């Protein structure tokens, strides 16, 4: 399948001192959901920021490798241009504009349409259709929404922009399990109905792999294992370390075997 986003061997350094990504590659085909999994500090968010150009705001820099969106190198393209070209980044922690109303948050997202697509009059209806709760609260300040509603608003802003690719950074962060399921169901629906490709960054491997077609797992700034989700979920190591299923023998491991855990966790050794 044709690749929408290709990340080719990138390295990222913060403050010219701290290297976070060490030769990471991945690709997102058109219209697919791809999951990028990994634990805290693996560099998942950094990966997304180096694609969307927000890295420079944090004094980070891509020192090697290339990121191509629709076959074109994104290097030097200002972040707002990338958004307008159809690459929408939903940042970690939702980042709604707290002192703007729900509706104004959506209006802010119409800037993503500048210079190409006309703003659809029914695009607000589309958002409210996916998230009826936002409609009820559209005159309220976004800061007063619950965590789940804020995540819905963050997704709603992405929908307004009608992008080809949404990069979702930890939509499950701080949400109750039921709500996580609801959000992920809607993400899958958006992908199905709007044809939007989704690059999903998560710590919650189980729900992510449930809706993704392909998965990457990263550790310490590079991909350690990847494959179609069926293959990944069948993988013994993935099961044990990311899905919380017991070892191959079906028994749960206790922390007494911590040494064993550590040894097994080194994928490439």
């Amino acid at each position, binding site marked *: 399948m044709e690749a929408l986003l290709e990340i080719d061997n990138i390295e990222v350094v913060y403050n010219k001192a701290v290297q976070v990504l060490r030769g990471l590659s991945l690709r997102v085909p058109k219209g697919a959901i791809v999951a990028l999994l990994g634990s805290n500090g693996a560099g998942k968010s950094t990966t997304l920021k180096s694609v969307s150009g927000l890295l420079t705001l944090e004094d980070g820099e891509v020192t090697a490798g290339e990121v191509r969106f629709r076959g074109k190198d994104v290097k030097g393209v200002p972040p707002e241009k990338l958004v307008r070209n159809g690459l929408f980044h939903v940042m970690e922690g939702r980042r709604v504009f707290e002192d703007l109303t729900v509706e104004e948050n959506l209006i802010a997202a119409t*800037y993503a349409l500048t210079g190409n697509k006309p703003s659809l009059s029914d695009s607000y209806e589309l958002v409210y259709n996916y998230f009826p709760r936002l409609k009820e609260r559209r005159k309220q300040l976004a800061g007063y929404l619950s965590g789940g509603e804020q995540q819905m608003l963050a997704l709603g802003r992405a929908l307004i922009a009608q992008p080809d690719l949404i990069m979702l950074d930890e939509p499950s962060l701080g949400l109750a399990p039921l709500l996580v399921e609801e959000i992920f169901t809607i993400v899958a629906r958006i992908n199905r109905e709007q044809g939007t490709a989704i690059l999903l960054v998560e710590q919650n491997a189980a729900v992510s792999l449930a809706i993704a077609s392909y998965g990457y797992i990263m550790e310490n700034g590079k991909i350690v294992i990847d494959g179609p989700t069926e293959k990944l979920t069948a993988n013994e190591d993935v099961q044990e370390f990311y899905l919380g299923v017991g070892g191959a023998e079906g028994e749960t491991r206790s922390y007494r075997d911590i040494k064993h855990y550590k040894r097994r966790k080194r994928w490439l050794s």
Partner: protein
Amino acid sequence: MDWLFFGEISLAGLAMGGLYALIALGFVMIYKATRVINFAIGEIMMFAAYLFLAFAGGMELSAWIALPLAVIGGSILGGVIEKTMIRPMLGESPISVVMVTIGIASILVGLVEFVWTADPQLLPNFLPREPVFIGPLYLAPKIAYGFLIGAALLIVYLLYFRFSRGGVALRATASDQAAAYSMGINVRRVFNLAWVFGSLAASLAGVLVAATGGLSPQFGIIGLSVLVVVIVGGLDSILGALVAGVFIGWLETVAGAYLGGEYRMPATFVVLAVILVIRPYGLFGTHEIERV
């Protein structure tokens, strides 16, 4: 106590306060969008007032043509300052940026002295001269009409912030810069426009204030009063700028009338000190938690 006198003084003070509110709005706009404390705002006002002097006095244009020209000139100055001197400082420590604005202020003073000399000047009068009475209270026409013009622009700004799409972009940028980028908002352009329109407000107020009180290269001192206004109101609060602007304008005028001109500034600074003790973020400012 002579209540009529007090009423007249208060009225003049409130009208002056309206202009302070306008300048403070320009200041807050720049601060909200770009987080730059612009110490050059008084000098931008002064520069615009001198432009007016040049257009209306020197070139003998009609004041109603000279006024918009001077205001546009001041706005362009703000835009150019942002693009050439403030933008390269992006990401530097706030103190360095403040020092740059102070530097700009003294450059402008020098420039004005070079072109127009250091002598005080009078602006040609362009506002109607008939005395204005509100009930039994007399108000100097220059102040009254200056207030009306200033208030008109102020209202336009407030409506724009609240209801327009551009206002949403500005508030979004103020609220979360990175998120604004990720919405496709051209944040650098918002920065520039904030400087342009902030300077526009200051420029108009500059011409109006100079028309009532005269003009000299020391005119920029008024920036100090404005600083008091924005700190009392809360640096990032538009409502605060309005309320504190009117209040400080009134206080300065009343203190000047009853205690003598030399007490104008001390009176406002006493208020400033008290407010800072009670509410360190100003009357309406947001509490900010610095994250490293």
